[in-house]
C-alpha cells in the first residue's frame, strides 16, 4: 500500500519539554485519518512538523514519498486550528492569494477563488473585505484558501471547532468529497463522535506518546463490549445495575460495561423495569470510551512509575 505520510521515530523537544516522543505512523493514501488526543498532547506539533514549519529533533518524516516536505508544500493543504484572515483584504483576493502562494498562476487562482466562493454560497461577498464577514463565513473562506490548489494531502487542525451545525455538515461533506476524489485527509479533533463517524484510521497521542494507531475497526477489536442505550427516566439507577463496573451516563444516552462474563440480557431486563429504553445495543465500545480509558490507564502508569521512582 502506498503511503501519503510516514513518520519514523519522530521526536520534538522544546527546551526540556518533549512535545512529541518517538512517534512512528503510516498513513495510507486516500483515507481519512484522525489525530486524537487531549489538548497539549502533541497533535499540533506533529502537524507542524509534517508541514515543515517545525523540524523534528530526531526521526524522519516522509510526505508523499519525499523526505522533505518543504519542497512539496505546494501539494499540501493546511488549515490551522487558530484561524485568521487579513482584515483589509477582499474575500476573493485572499483565497486567490493563498492559491498563488501555493504556486498557482495569478489568473487561474483568481478565477478559481471566485468559483469556489460562489459554490460555497459566498457569491455576494466576493469583493467584500474580510473584516465584514461573520465568524462562520470567515472559517469558510479560510477552508477554501486551504483547498484552492487541489492539494493531495490535506491537514485540518480541529476543523470542526466553533462551527454551527450547518457549517459542520458542510465541513464533513467537504472532507468526504476529498476522500472520494482520492486525496488524503488528516484531521485532529478531541470530539470523538466526529472521528468515529468520519475516520478510516485513527491514532491517539497522550502526553507526547503514541497510545494506539490503525484502522478504526482494528482498534476496537478485542476490547470489552459495552451496552449502549438511549433512555428516558432517572439515570441514577444505572449506577445500581448489578454487575456494572463502569457507567458513562450522558443523561439521555449511556454506555455501561459489565463484569466479564455477565449476560447483557439480564441487564436489559433489570433496566426495563426501572427506566424507558429507546435503544439497546451490545457492541464494541465507543471511541469516546476507548479515549477515556486510554487516558486513565496512561496516567495510572505514569503515577505508578513516579511512585516507584520516588520510593527508590
Amino acid at each position, binding site marked *: 500500500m502506498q503511503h501519503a505520510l510516514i513518520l519514523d521515530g519522530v521526536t520534538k523537544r522544546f527546551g526540556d519539554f518533549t512535545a512529541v516522543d518517538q512517534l512512528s505512523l503510516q498513513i495510507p493514501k486516500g483515507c481519512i485519518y484522525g489525530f486524537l488526543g487531549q489538548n497539549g498532547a502533541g497533535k499540533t506539533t506533529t502537524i507542524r512538523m509534517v508541514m515543515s514549519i517545525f523540524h523534528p529533533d530526531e526521526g524522519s518524516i516522509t510526505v508523499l514519498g519525499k523526505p522533505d516536505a518543504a519542497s512539496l508544500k505546494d501539494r499540501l493543504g493546511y*488549515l490551522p486550528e487558530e484561524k*485568521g484572515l487579513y482584515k*483589509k*483584504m477582499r474575500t476573493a483576493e485572499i483565497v486567490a492569494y*493563498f492559491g498563488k*502562494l501555493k504556486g498557482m498562476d495569478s489568473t487561474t487562482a483568481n478565477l478559481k477563488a471566485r468559483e469556489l466562493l460562489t459554490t460555497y454560497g459566498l457569491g455576494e461577498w466576493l469583493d467584500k473585505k474580510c473584516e465584514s464577514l461573520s465568524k462562520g463565513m470567515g472559517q469558510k473562506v*479560510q477552508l477554501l*484558501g486551504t483547498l484552492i490548489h487541489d492539494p493531495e494531502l490535506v491537514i485540518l487542525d480541529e476543523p470542526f471547532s466553533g462551527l454551527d451545525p450547518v457549517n459542520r455538515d458542510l465541513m464533513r461533506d467537504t472532507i468526504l468529497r476529498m476522500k472520494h476524489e482520492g486525496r488524503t485527509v488528516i484531521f485532529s479533533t478531541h470530539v470523538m463522535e466526529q472521528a468515529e463517524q468520519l475516520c478510516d484510521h485513527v491514532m491517539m497521542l497522550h502526553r507526547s506518546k503514541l497510545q494506539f494507531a490503525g484502522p478504526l475497526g482494528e482498534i476496537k477489536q478485542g476490547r470489552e463490549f459495552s451496552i449502549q442505550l438511549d433512555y428516558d427516566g432517572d439515570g441514577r439507577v444505572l449506577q445500581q445495575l448489578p454487575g456494572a463496573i463502569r457507567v458513562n451516563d450522558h443523561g439521555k444516552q449511556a454506555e455501561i460495561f459489565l463484569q466479564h462474563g455477565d449476560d447483557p440480557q439480564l441487564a436489559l431486563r433489570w433496566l426495563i423495569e426501572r427506566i424507558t429504553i429507546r435503544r439497546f445495543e451490545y457492541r464494541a465500545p465507543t471511541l469516546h470510551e476507548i479515549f477515556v480509558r486510554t487516558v486513565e490507564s496512561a496516567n495510572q502508569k505514569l503515577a505508578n512509575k513516579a511512585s516507584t521512582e520516588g520510593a527508590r
Partner: protein
Amino acid sequence: MANKTILVAQREYLENVRTKTFWIGIIAFPVIIAISISAGWILNKLKQQQSYAVLDLSAQKIADRIERAARTPDLLALGKLLKSNEQLPAALQRAKAGMKNALPINGSNEEANPPEEVLIDLMQVMRELPASDLDTLIASNKGMSTARKYEHQSLQQLGLDTLEPAVQKKRLNELVEKGTLFAFFEIGVAPLTSLGDFNYVSNNLTDGALRDWYGEAATRVVQSLRIKDAKLDPKVAQAIAEQVRFREQKVGKDGDAQDVKSGEKANKYAPFGFVYLLWVAIFTAAQMLLTNTVEEKSNRIIEVLLSSVSPLELMSGKIWGIAATGLTIVGSWVVCTLLGVWLAPRLITGMDFPLMEVIGDPLYLISFVAYFLGGYLLFAAILVGLGSVTNSLKEAQNLLQPVFVLMMVPLVSMFFVVQEPNGTVAKVLSYIPLFTPFTMMNRAGGPPAAYEYVITGLLLLVSVIVAFRLAGKVFRIGVLMTGNPPKLREILGWLRAK
C-alpha cells in the same frame, strides 16, 4: 528573490498603498512642512498695520528727522523707482513732475546717503501716495516694506496738537489703551545730554519690531546731532563708529580663498532637514513593519502562511514589501521637494531661496534614498526580530525602549555633526552602522572623503546582511510562539542554533 517572497512583498505593498489614509499621510507631510516654512513669512506679511504716534518734547524737535531716518530704505526705493523708466501710477507721475529737488544721480555717493532735502521731498510723495498704489508697489516687490507696516499718526491727525504736553500724554495713553494706537514714542527733552526720558508705551509686550525699528533710527539721529554738537568732523565720527565686519570666505579647490555664497551656507545646514526626514521615514517604515508583524502573529494568519512559504521567505517578503512602501513615501517626498523647488520662486516673489537650490541637489536626493534603504533594512531586521517574539503591540513597545534610545542618538548629535562635519564625533558615529545613514547624511555638507563613503557603506551592508541572518533565526521560532515572551537567554540560544 524567490517567487514567494515577491508575492508576500507585493501583498504587503498593495495593502498599504491602496488605502486612502496612506496617500493622505504622504501628502500631508510635505504640505505641513510647506505650510510651516511659509507660515512665518505669510504671517509676517499679514501682520496688521501698526499705528504709532510720537510725542516730541525735545528742544530740537527731532521727530521728523527720526521718521525720515527710519524710512530711508523705503524712500531710496521710491527714489529709484521714480528715476527708472518704468510705468508709474498716475499719482507718482504727477509727483515726479512736481518735485522740487532733483533725484540723486545713479552710482554717485549721494545715492546711498541722499541729501536731506531729497528725503523730505520723497517723504512728501510717499505720504500723498494713495494706499492702493502703495500696496501695488509693495506687492510687486519694489521695496517700501515698512511704508504700510508702520503707520505714523501725527498729533495733528489725532487732534492733540494744540494741547498741553501733560494732557497730550494722557490722551495718548488712552488711545493705546483703546487700541487706536499700537504704541507711542515719547522723545525726551534733551536728547543731546540725557536719554533717560525716552519712553515707548504699548500694551503689546511681545512684538518689539516697531520699537527696534524706530529706536535704531532715533539712535542714528541722536548720534549725528551729538557729533554736530561736539563739532566733530562727521567723516571722522563715522570712521570711529564704523563696525568691523569679517567677510566669510573658504578655501576653494584651487587652494585660494573665495567668498562664501549664500547658497553654500545653506548647503551646510541642508543636511539638518534631510537627517530629520530620513529619521522620520526610517522610523515610520520600521514601525509599520513591527505593527504588521505583531498583528499577523496575533491574528494567527502566520501559520497558514508558513505552511506555504518558509519563514525566511515570509520575513524578507514583509521587509521588502514595506521597503517598497517606504520608498514610495520617500519618493513622493522627493517629488514634492523638486516640485516645491521649482514652484516656490514662481509663486512667491520676494523670498530668497538658496536653500531650495541645495535641497534640489541630486546628490542629496540620491543619497537620501540610498541611506533610507540601508538604514531601514537594518532597523527593519531588528524590529521584525523583536516583533516576532511578542504577542501584542504593548509588549512590543516595551521591548522597543532600547531601540528608541538608540534612534535618538542621531537626532541628539545632529547639531554637533552639522557644525563639525569632519570632527571626531561625526567620524566615530559614521562607523557605527546603526547611525551610518543619519551621520553620513548629516555630514554631506562637509563633505566626507570618498573612502569614508565606501568603508561606512560596506560596514552598513555587512551589518544589514548579518542582521537579516540573526533576525531570520529569531523570527523562525519566535513567530509561532505564544504565551510569555522568551527570555533573552533563550533568544541567544536560538541565535546560536543552526
